[in-house]
């Protein structure tokens, strides 16, 4: 391994870290899941409502406790079924053989400013061990 190899490794690491940082600024708890087949929207479903959605005859999507996942697929590789549950904005599950995607959307308030955090919860979030992490995150995003 020479210095150029090391430089390449560092370059790729930086690119990946920059990507992760960019992702962190964009992800919040999502509100809806968009199901698309062949790039066309099949339906948009609320994450609040527990439900099972049959996507054609090839995939079954399950929504429960604010998260969505692919419960069943008829494809051989089953990558989408083993994919972790998704609940944050822009997270995606892809079933490539069937060209089905699940994408988390922010819901109606997407693109709107975050809800204003009340002073009380602001104070709480800076006390270690108190306050919800989410409120801390939403202030950090501003």
């Amino acid at each position, binding site marked *: *391994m*020479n210095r*150029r*190899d090391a430089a*390449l*490794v560092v370059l*790729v*690491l930086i*690119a*990946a*870290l*920059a*990507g*992760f940082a960019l*992702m962190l600024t964009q992800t919040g708890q999502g509100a809806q899941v968009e199901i*698309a087949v*062949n*790039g*066309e929207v099949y339906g948009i479903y609320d994450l609040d409502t527990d439900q099972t959605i049959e996507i054609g005859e090839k995939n079954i999507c399950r929504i429960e406790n604010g998260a969505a996942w692919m419960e069943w697929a008829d494809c051989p590789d089953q*990558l*989408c079924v*083993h*994919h*972790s549950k998704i609940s944050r904005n*822009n*997270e*995606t599950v*892809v079933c*490539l*053989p069937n*060209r*089905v*995607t699940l*994408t988390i959307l922010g819901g109606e308030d997407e693109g709107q400013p975050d809800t204003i955090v009340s002073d009380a919860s602001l104070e709480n979030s800076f006390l270690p061990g108190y306050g919800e992490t989410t409120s801390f995150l939403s202030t950090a995003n501003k």
Partner: protein
Amino acid sequence: MGKKVALLGMCSAGAILLGYVESLIPVFFFVPGMKLGLANLAVVLTLYFFSPRDALIVQLVRIVVVGFLFGNLFSIAFSLAGGLLSLGFMCLAKRYGGFTVYGVSVAGGVTHNIGQICVAAVLVENVRIIYYLPFLLLSGLVTGLLIGLLSHEMMKRLGGYLKTM
């Protein structure tokens, strides 16, 4: 000539076998397309022992045979995108980059993943798949280093032997 054809056949067989072995190991589930890229070991070795043209032949034979054995036309197109892009970049990295086999292999791993994610984004017509890219960059880096290490060790042990043939 005959020896070279036989050796290239061995490399192709090795690549196909490694591809099969890999399909038996469900290592990474987190992101589709994350895999070890073991087959790339045979391609990298062909690139170093023979020439870019021979590596291209091995790569094409591997993709077509594995595709027809275990996949379909769809997965062949998918593999071609990643496989050809990565081979192209590995040739460039080896010829002009001044890298050792580690750098060449990392370049191959990373560009393979970039190629596949682009095809995936086009196929499902969903640009948001790009969000997988940082994961795939990291996995390409790690597997590239691993394949680089394996190639390095195998070249040390096989290099002299091949020259005597």
